[in-house]
């Protein structure tokens, strides 16, 4: 049930959210992409003779892309209001900073 607050309404439940009409994503197709990329990761890690830096970049790139697919289609972010997506994106640079800032400290 939508509740009224001042000028607009607030979404009170999943059923009364404002939704962008869109076709349901092909969940099985996304699953197939995830599967192919997982196999590609294992192959790249063990079969290829790439130098270490390239290896890490490619593996991390594949992992991040898989994560993005899960976030966009299974967690529905592709179709959520932009302001929610922006809230989530705001956390990501902070997480990266957390992970790498200490690397620049002396004595590690």
């Amino acid at each position, binding site marked *: *049930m939508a509740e009224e607050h001042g000028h607009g309404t607030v979404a009170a439940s999943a059923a009364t959210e404002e939704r962008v009409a869109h076709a349901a994503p092909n969940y099985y197709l996304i699953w197939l992409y995830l599967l192919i990329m997982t196999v590609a990761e294992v192959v790249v890690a063990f079969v290829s003779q790439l130098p270490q830096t390239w290896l890490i970049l490619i*593996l991390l790139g594949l992992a991040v892309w898989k994560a993005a697919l899960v976030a966009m289609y299974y967690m529905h972010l592709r179709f959520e209001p932009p302001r929610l997506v922006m809230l989530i994106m705001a956390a990501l640079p902070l997480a990266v900073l957390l992970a790498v800032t200490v690397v620049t400290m002396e004595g590690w």
Partner: protein
Amino acid sequence: MSAHGAVPVAVTRPMEGMKVYNQKLGMWVFLLSEVMFFSSLIGAYIILRFANPEQWAEPGVVLAVPLTAFNTFMLICSSVTMVKAFAAIEHGDQAGLKKWLLATILLGAAFVGIQVYEYIQLAGHGFVPMRDAYAAEGGPLYGATFYTMTGFHGTHVTIGVLCLIFTAIKAFRGHYTEMNYGGVEIMGLYWHFVDLVWIILFTIVYLI
């Protein structure tokens, strides 16, 4: 004024705030805090590894990559079943909701089971946190970071499975309908997040 006890009304005016219902926003904010949590663990791993590279074995030497790759595949499948459960109840399909929820629970429990099996195998071969050798099989930090990262993730999966069981019990009691499925959606968000973290962790811990 809110209309208590009235039937659900269609939205006729633009929504303010985040445009999503509170529980969904709450779950997302919680997941963001979990992002920070796992980032801190991964950040610590990166720093420790850069500083002490001799303590890490080559990928595949100590850890069972094929078994864990299969485990990864199972967790990805559980994400599919979870989103199918959500899609089912979005359209009021009660049988579909129950079926797909049960499948998700089975796959999630199997993931935890295989991880526990893997832990037992590793410990049996002497790979434990803070093991003392600087051999080709890795030093103290290798085990410490491995068990910390995968252990915390495994705990998250276990809690997810328990919550899924609770959700399934409610589903079997007919609690969810096409007008009331928020609980399934936010459970799904948590579960997909757990899968997402594992996608990153599997790459970092097992393949690099």
